[in-house]
């Protein structure tokens, strides 16, 4: 049954007795329809606001993470990646320098060992000098004995022998003194070489451990940085998916606009029905049923803004289902 026939039959049945009651009910119905539309719109506005908030927060988090990872690139200072590489280069250079210092120390130890050998050689030579001094002393003693044998004639020769003996003693004392200094020097060199050798050995061990530790720390940093970049790429993809889902949600939420428009059109028709009923209550302004029907139908058709509304109306009037052909959804003039 068409809408008009339905309304007409109801009006005939209750025409005089219920008009007043209908006139009371219709404004309430219209208010209800407007209220529903307003509440739906309010809810959708809140949902949209939340979507916008989610998208904004997501974008800000992404920007912050991106800023952190590319820190320095925009300001001209080093990025994390560059900083890791610079640290690697600096540490490697530092460790190489320490290794070269260790090698120099080892060379110094080697030179000290050579000096020690040379000092030992000097000690040998001093021993030879002492032997010569002793021999000279023996020669002087023999010469003195021979000088005593020749008596007064050998007096001068005896003086020479004494002098040679004193020179021998002096040479022996000097050789002993030099020997003592050389031994002291050898002991000091030896002590320093022992200490330096220990330092070199310790340094090599520490250097090797430091190189391994530094390499390990830098590898950890590289791994962390790589994972951060992977997380970042994932966040970008997730953010993009979120934006896509929000877009789809926006399309879906527009049902509210269409629903509200249709409710507004229903409310307008209710208002027209209300006016017609009011006219019936007043015998002077009464219209014929056909005139009222035409007026109501024309008003309803004029109020439609969607093809789906027109299709539903046509279906209800003719009883034949019709497709709501919207045509192109985008057209540029």
């Amino acid at each position, binding site marked *: 049954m068409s809408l008009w026939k339905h309304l007409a039959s109801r009006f005939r049945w209750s025409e005089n007795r219920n008009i007043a009651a209908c006139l009371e009910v219709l404004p309430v119905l219209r208010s209800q329809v407007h209220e529903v539309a307003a509440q739906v719109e309010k809810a959708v506005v809140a949902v*949209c606001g939340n979507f916008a908030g989610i998208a904004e927060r997501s974008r800000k988090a992404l920007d912050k993470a991106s800023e952190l990872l590319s820190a320095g690139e925009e300001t001209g200072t080093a990025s994390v990646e560059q900083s890791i590489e610079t640290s690697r280069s600096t540490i490697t250079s530092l460790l190489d320098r320490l290794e070269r210092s260790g090698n120099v120390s080892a060379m110094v130890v080697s030179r000290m060992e050579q000096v020690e050998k040379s000092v030992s050689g000097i000690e040998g030579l001093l021993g030879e000098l002492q032997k010569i001094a002793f021999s000279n002393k023996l020669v002087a003693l023999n010469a003195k004995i021979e000088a005593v044998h020749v008596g007064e004639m050998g007096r001068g020769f005896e003086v020479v022998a004494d002098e040679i003996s004193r020179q021998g003693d002096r040479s022996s004392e000097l050789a002993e003194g030099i020997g003592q200094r050389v031994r002291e020097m050898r002991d000091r060199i030896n002590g320093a070489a022992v200490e330096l050798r220990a330092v070199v050995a310790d340094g090599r061990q520490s250097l090797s451990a430091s190189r391994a530790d530094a390499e390990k720390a830098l590898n950890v940093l590289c791994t962390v940085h790589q994972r951060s970049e992977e997380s970042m790429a994932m966040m970008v993809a997730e953010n993009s998916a979120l934006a896509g889902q929000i877009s789809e949600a*926006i399309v879906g939420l527009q049902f509210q*606009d269409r629903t509200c428009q249709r409710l507004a059109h229903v409310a307008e028709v209710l208002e027209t029905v209300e006016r017609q009923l009011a006219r019936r209550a007043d015998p002077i302004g009464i219209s014929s049923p056909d005139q009222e029907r035409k007026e109501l139908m024309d008003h309803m058709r004029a109020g439609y803004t*969607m093809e789906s509304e027109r299709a539903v109306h046509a279906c209800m009037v003719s009883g034949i289902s019709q497709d709501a052909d919207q045509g*192109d959804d985008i*057209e540029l003039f």
Partner: protein
Amino acid sequence: MARTALIVDDSSSIRQMVAYTLQQAGFAILEGSNGQDGLQKLEKNRVEIIITDLNMPIMDGITFITQLRRLPGTKYTPVLMLTTESQLEKKQEGKAAGATGWIVKPFHPGKLLDVIAKVLP
């Protein structure tokens, strides 16, 4: 400096959805709830694009476009009609009034941005 878009629609939810979509593309947004409100916004602001509904109280979209085309500042500004209406006669009215394009609701954000990119100078 961000480009500015004027969104005119009596539905606050549609204004919000269009505003969200355009803000993602870097636009600054001005809003009006009907044609008259939109004209008042245009008096004080320069905009690069206008998106308007057709059926609105106080002043509808067709009248709004007709009047804004008389203003020197918006004579050549792209104006997109965003409406649930898809009747050919209405589209022709919109075209005659000076609309640049016609988009039937519900709109897809990506497609809306594509159309805007096409009509912007």
